[in-house]
């Protein structure tokens, strides 16, 4: 019916233009920029690998920022996924009032990326904020949530964990698709509950675990609002994630070339991890014959 090949192309034209102008061109241009020095006033000046040489061998702030970023990602992503899956498993029991809980858990992830929530976090965890007040009522000394490097990263991490709802909703949908007959068959064969969980549930939802993992990974590497508003990267750069460093290089100091170089390093890390995940996925992600939504 839809045989007109040209017409099909016409419908996707906006996407092709957008792709070329707003994605492909900037993508390559930022690679080009990373080999230049460019302050927006003078013309870009080709410096070869200087930006990268400086970054890797002379810029201790880069290494600090990178290690903070990796710590942040490798703490938040697994914790958030595990927590989301755990709560989804509980919700998957046919309990009364599930919808209410599901909605309540989902609200933070709808609002969580906003400035307003970051502001709320800043005030709740302030030295004289409500969290320290609560701790005070049970006799715990005030915690320097933003004053101490270790605690500051923890507080930022907590904000991300608080937004576990979207991953949970996706897990829950996947769990509800696991056929009950499989569990019944396993029970008849004498399987225990934990065996059913690790042999049936987990393998069947691996595609969704994989999907959630990749999405959370890409997002966590780009976190900006939380640390920018709550801690400004401090104290002692303990929450200075790479996106903050990129922003300050490019849009505060107007070092477009160095900013682009940092962005490409961040992109390369995300890409390598994504490729590793895709390559190893054939060993642990189980695609059943039926259509996966």
């Amino acid at each position, binding site marked *: 019916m839809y045989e007109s090949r040209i017409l*099909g192309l016409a419908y996707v034209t906006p*996407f092709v233009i957008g*792709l070329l102008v707003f994605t492909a061109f900037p993508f390559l241009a930022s690679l080009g920029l990373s080999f230049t020095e460019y302050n927006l006033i003078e013309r870009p000046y080709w410096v070869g690998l200087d930006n990268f040489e400086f970054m890797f061998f002379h810029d201790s702030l880069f290494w600090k920022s990178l290690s903070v970023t990796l710590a942040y990602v490798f703490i938040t992503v697994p914790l958030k996924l595990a927590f989301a899956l755990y709560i989804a498993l509980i919700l998957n029991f046919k309990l009364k009032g599930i919808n209410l809980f599901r909605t309540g858990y989902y609200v933070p992830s709808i609002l969580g990326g906003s400035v307003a929530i970051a502001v709320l976090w800043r*005030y709740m965890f302030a030295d004289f904020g409500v969290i320290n007040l609560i701790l005070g009522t049970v006799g715990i000394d005030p915690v320097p949530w933003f004053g101490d490097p270790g605690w500051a990263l923890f507080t930022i991490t907590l904000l991300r964990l608080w937004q576990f709802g979207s991953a949970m909703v996706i897990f829950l949908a996947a769990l509800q698709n696991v056929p009950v007959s499989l569990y019944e068959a396993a029970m008849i064969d004498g399987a225990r509950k934990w065996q059913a969980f690790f042999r049936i549930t987990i393998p069947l939802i691996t595609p969704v675990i994989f999907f959630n993992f990749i999405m959370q990974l890409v997002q966590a590497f780009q976190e900006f609002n939380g640390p920018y508003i709550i801690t400004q990267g401090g104290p002692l750069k303990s929450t200075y994630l790479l996106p903050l460093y990129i922003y300050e290089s490019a849009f505060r100091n107007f070092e477009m070339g160095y900013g682009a170089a940092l*962005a490409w390093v961040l*992109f390369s890390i995300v890409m390598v991890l994504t490729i590793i995940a895709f390559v190893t996925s054939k060993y642990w992600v189980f695609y059943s014959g039926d259509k996966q939504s």
Partner: protein
Amino acid sequence: MRSIEQTAASAQAMAEVRKTERRQKINAVVRYVILAAVGFAMIYPLLWLIGASFKTNHEIFTEIGFIPMHPTLDGYIEGWKTSTEYTFGRFFINTFIILIPKVLATAFSSTLVAYGFARFDFPGKKILFSILIATLLLPNVVTRIPQYILFRELGWLDSYLPLWVPQMFAVDAFFVFMLIQFLRGIPRDMEEAAMIDGCKPFQVLLYIVIPMLKPAIISVCLFQFMWSMNDFLGPLIYISSVEKYPIALALKMSISATESFEWNRILSMTVLALTPSLAVFFLAQKYFIEGISTTGLKG
């Protein structure tokens, strides 16, 4: 003899059943306790925020309860005035001036493109579709700097154009992907019947596909609404004059300004900043949950 054995066996079975029932009940209670505890942790910050916005500054620092003991609207009245020459209302209007064209452009362009991908065959479709999926995973951070330079060359800085224009070209692959997934689930019978009756593809799109796609298009609009409300980095980079600030920038400004000591003002404006998103979410939550669980979108 037999009946005694039977009774004994059935009594044992009954005890067994009762034991399982009791265990199930305990399990259910444990689950509810966990759910309620987690739910409380989820909702507590929001409840505290709403309560605190009606408190005096002194009470915010000293009381942990939700309910203000001396409710006051001071925070709202003073906060609304802001430390600038504009009221908070101005920032609300700016936010919607950014938001509405952005949402409409997204819905329009994503629908066209998704229709093209889901229903037509054209040269290069496979490659384009793979690129579409790849851009889902492309971190925006890598394209942001040249985009900024591009918009600067075009003279679009300090205007809303950098926030609007890209959306006319379906740059958010998420939305296109979501609509394609939805379209794939709709049988083509109706469209084919209409074509036999002489409808052109564009008429089919307008009169048959869009009405069927309506729930998915609404989901697209809602998600774009939420993401744009939450967007901070875009306006931060592109908008420099205070008169054009959306809420996100105005809030950030207020915590940096001297009024940051006036907690209740900032918390009141934070409540207002969250109100549109919360209202939209509760009015249309079924679209969110369905949208996210059928296509696996981020939230």
